[in-house]
């Protein structure tokens, strides 16, 4: 008799194929595809709205057969869907679609990321002013930064529930900050310089290095921008000069 692992391997294989299946096996096949496409629909509601249910389901099926789920937790499924969409021939006319999906996956990850601890203002006050430029700020676990040559934030905003789907602009690059306030994920459009400074923090840059991204906006960022990001819990911690990260 076949070993358990062989029986299971053959059965799972039969669920992922696209041929004729006995009716009872077809029930499982439908269940599996419903679970996987349902997880994608939950993570990518704007993408779904942009392409419509039938297109989305067909894309989800094609993706599912090529990219099996690797976790018993469906929230972990679908991170490669944007990459799949960027090469999906039927979506070629929608050049912004994959980047909108990237923004949505960033939102999905943000929603489940760890909570940040409180910012240690007292420790910051103890850093001597002459060493402030060497501080390395770190971002909260729920922060994600997405940049695109397409107006992805405008498209995302226009396709939220209750909105009519018309973006404020249809051209131009946009830089998105994804963060979380009171458990709720927020998406915000940032200027390129400010976005670049936060991205530099995410890479472990010092305050001086990050300010280099800002050009003429450096003064405004150091005055109000940084303070706002700290207040909103976007910048969550820092390493003082000489401290290990």
């Amino acid at each position: 008799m076949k070993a358990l692992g062989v029986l299971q391997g053959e059965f799972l294989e039969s669920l992922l194929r696209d041929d004729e299946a006995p009716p009872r096996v077809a029930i499982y096949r439908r269940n599996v595809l419903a679970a996987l496409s349902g997880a994608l629909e939950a993570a990518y509601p704007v993408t779904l709205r942009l392409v419509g249910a039938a297109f989305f389901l067909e894309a989800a099926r094609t993706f599912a057969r090529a990219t099996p789920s690797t976790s018993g937790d469906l929230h972990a499924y679908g991170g490669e869907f944007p990459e799949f969409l960027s090469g999906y021939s039927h979506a070629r006319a929608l050049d912004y679609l994959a980047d909108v999906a990237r923004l949505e996956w960033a939102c999905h990850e943000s929603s489940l990321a760890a909570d940040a601890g409180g910012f240690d203002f007292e420790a910051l006050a103890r850093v001597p002013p002459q060493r402030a430029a060497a501080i390395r700020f770190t971002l909260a676990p729920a922060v994600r930064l997405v940049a695109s040559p397409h107006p992805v934030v405008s498209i995302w905003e226009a396709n939220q529930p209750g909105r009519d789907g018309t973006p404020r602009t249809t051209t131009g690059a946009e830089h998105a900050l994804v963060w979380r306030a009171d458990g709720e994920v927020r998406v915000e459009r940032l200027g390129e310089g400010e976005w670049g400074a936060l991205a530099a923090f995410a890479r472990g840059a010092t305050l001086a290095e990050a300010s280099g991204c800002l050009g003429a906006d450096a003064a405004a960022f150091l005055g109000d921008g940084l303070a706002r990001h700290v207040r909103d819990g976007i910048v969550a911690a820092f390493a003082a000069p000489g401290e290990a990260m």
Partner: protein
Amino acid sequence: MAAQGAPVVGIGLRAPHYAQVLERRPDLAFLEVHSENFFGDGGAPLAWLERFRGAYPLSLHGVGLSLGSADTLQERHLAKLEALVHRFEPLLVSEHLSWSSIGGRHANDLLPLPYTEEALALVIERVDRVQERLGRPILLENVSTYHAFAESSIPEWEFVAEVARASACRLLLDVNNVHVNAFNHGFDARRYLAAIDPASVAEIHLAGFEEADGCLIDTHGAPVSPEVWSLYEAAVARFGAQPTLIEWDTDIPALDVLLGEARKARAILVPREVGATARALP
């Protein structure tokens, strides 16, 4: 376990009812949630669960451990579950007598086991390891199935009874699944109940099925059927007033519909207190 003495009925809590349950605080003995919905590191889901935990005893019901897979147990999944169990100290922890992954690929569905000696030995060993890891007993649920492996050599009811006997776990008896399988595979549901040791059942699930092409499908998307209520009465007569849960996962109705089903279950658990129970519930 709170089951002793007072008969207790709970509902499977899903996102559309989160806010209402906290606001209305319906008279329920416990809330059951899917463990994997709280596997994130932080954010809103865990904040909700903290609030539910403050208001009701919890039951963590896993759908993704793939206990019956010939693959090794998934360490990452088990570690997440362990952390959740330690943080929330649930009243009950349960998983399914099934598998959902092989070769690292997941179907994210509860797939049928071939009922063989090999599968039996594997499940018993896995249950022992999970219980040891979590430091507490778990409940195992019988699943609904549509496909039967020609390789099966043990009737499902004997397989289920033997898992409970040989490992220290108890059973989460899904009465709807017994009915669905009896219909789909042509056996007597009451014979199934009679094969299970009365002391091994520690929770009962009730849900609705739908029929398609001569097969009953466990959709959790309909009211509990009259046949399943009748089988539930037989189960209560044999296994006693075990904690009972109403599950509804697709086409989720208004909370009051679930509470109505919970009331019906309670009426069967405590026939003499039907009037009092109905008044006590909102």
